[in-house]
């Protein structure tokens, strides 16, 4: 039996570790900030966080920028609101004015107070590097980070399959909502990376109440991971006669999309009950098509949800939730998809509470001396026999086994490596 190294419990409660994470993890990787469809017009902006740094994602004349929401004079936040449209951000302290591209445009009393040679161009808002994929805007503070394609590695194929199925693309429905939850951010990241093991216990009531339909049939799950930390789990209905389709979309949209799709992408997406995963380090994604959330929400409707985890302190993190819908879906379908995601995975839904409650309890169980001597166990699936063959051929390390912690081991291994700990 191979003993896999766990993250020490102190890493879930030590403020010095959180400081190092903000530098080594959140300061070095590409982080998802938002979606292009949230800022469709020139001047549109949203305010977000990249780890510990407040940022503005804005569309200027030259495209989308992500910049530090902090004045270059004395560091005052230049924008306080969630979203809007503007040509400039005016600092409320001494009145420096920045364009929606972040350039410093004006300084009150500039000539008289700073002299004729004062150079505004070096005092724009600090800019992050920005790249997009399928409308997802990623940014990083690290000038030496590889480009986004290299960062995503084999996982790029899965992002394409996840977000690129519909030729018209996807868009954000509404915007984001956020919640402040108890528990270190890593607990949540690890859960989404591929914990198929918790479903039948943590979420049992969801199945008992018929949310996922009868699901009497056989399901087969697989996990995929990339050494750079990205992970995903997909689960398939394996019985004879299950239709070869992606459940829960409108026919007018789905049929041409499937006809145009790469055959391997089709096999990856079709017959799935759920696909969820982690774009390392803190972007979570899930798509599923629940069947019943009450008389006004019956019949399968798919939803796609993104989440970003931002540490608040070592014992709490903020979750931001996005709902994505195919751009070409009907307004009625979009509203229904949003209703389903709200009832299953909205911050206030009682199914979401199953997970959040367990995260609280992990935090409450951290302990001190004896706790530190009791490392978490990561042995699930190390010696397990393989189950069936995955229906698709794709890149990445695919594990032919659902009840395995291969993804959690990947996340932990990459995290410890980046933190300078030997995995």
């Amino acid at each position: 039996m191979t003993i896999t190294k766990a993250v020490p419990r102190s890493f879930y409660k030590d403020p010095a570790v959180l400081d190092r994470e903000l530098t080594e993890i959140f300061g070095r990787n590409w982080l998802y900030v938002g979606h292009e469809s949230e800022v469709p017009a020139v001047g549109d902006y949203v305010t977000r966080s990249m780890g510990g740094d407040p940022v503005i994602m804005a569309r200027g004349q030259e495209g989308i920028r992500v910049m530090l929401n902090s004045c270059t004079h004395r560091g005052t936040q230049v924008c306080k609101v969630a979203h809007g449209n503007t040509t400039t951000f005016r600092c409320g302290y001494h009145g420096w004015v920045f364009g929606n591209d972040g350039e410093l445009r004006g300084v009150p009393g500039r000539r008289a107070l700073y002299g004729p040679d004062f150079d505004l161009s070096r005092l724009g808002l600090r800019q992050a590097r920005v790249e997009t994929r399928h409308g997802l805007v990623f940014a990083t503070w690290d000038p030496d980070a590889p480009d986004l394609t290299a960062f995503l590695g084999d996982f790029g194929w899965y992002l394409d399959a996840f977000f690129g199925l519909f030729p018209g693309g996807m868009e954000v429905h509404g915007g984001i909502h956020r919640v402040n939850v108890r528990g270190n951010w890593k607990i949540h990241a690890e859960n989404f990376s591929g914990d198929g093991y918790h479903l039948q216990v943590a979420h049992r009531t969801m199945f008992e109440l018929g949310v996922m339909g009868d699901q009497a049939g056989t399901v087969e799950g697989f996990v995929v991971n990339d050494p750079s930390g990205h992970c995903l789990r997909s689960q398939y209905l394996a019985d004879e006669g299950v239709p070869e389709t992606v459940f829960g979309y409108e026919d007018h949209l789905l049929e041409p999309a499937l006809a145009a799709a790469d055959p391997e992408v089709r096999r990856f997406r079709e017959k799935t009950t759920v696909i969820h995963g982690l774009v390392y380090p803190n972007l979570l994604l899930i798509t599923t098509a629940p069947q019943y959330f009450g008389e006004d929400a019956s019949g399968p409707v798919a939803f796609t949800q993104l989440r970003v985890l931002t540490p608040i302190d070592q014992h709490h993190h903020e979750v931001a939730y996005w709902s994505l819908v195919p751009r070409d879906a009907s307004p009625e379908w979009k509203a229904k998809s949003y209703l389903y995601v709200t009832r299953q995975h909205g911050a206030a839904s009682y199914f979401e509470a199953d997970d959040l409650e367990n995260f609280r309890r992990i935090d409450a169980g951290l302990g001190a001396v004896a706790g530190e001597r009791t490392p978490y166990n990561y042995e699930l699936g190390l010696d397990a026999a393989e189950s069936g063959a995955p229906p698709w051929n794709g890149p990445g390390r695919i594990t032919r086994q659902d009840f395995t912690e291969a993804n959690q081991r990947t996340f932990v291994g990459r995290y410890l490596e980046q933190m300078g700990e030997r995995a």
Partner: protein
Amino acid sequence: MIRLEIEDFLFHEAALLDAGRYAEWLDLLHEDFLYRVPVPLAREDPTQSPYDDVLEFANESKSFLEMRFRRISSDFAWAERPAAMVRHFVSNVRVIPQDEGDELEVHTNVLVTRARLPEQPVWATAGRRDRIVRHDGGFLLRERVVHLDAEVPTESQLGVIF
């Protein structure tokens, strides 16, 4: 006086929620009842309502609420074990006159505390916009829109019906 009648109804309804008498609470709901908690967002323009038109923390119909309460009786409803102690403080009751029909619009302020022992209680404040209809000599709740006073609430604050 209509306000006193309405207050009696709202205090009774709150008491049922606080006591976990959910079946009786459901009996106070109209068949088309909808419970909504739109997301408040900080806006540039102070004259705009902060409550978003699309984004919702919650959108629950009567049949969905029935599922919620059926779930509570399961041993696997982890977030309900141990059950939270919940108290509603309902005040500033205003009955907004309507031009016609037998529907009433009622605005209230609420402070709701929630304690999951042994943790300390948390509380949240909100404004409520209720639509209430007369029924069988009493009232039924037709709609409740909750205007929460927090943009980034905790999951404990969201764990109650306001």
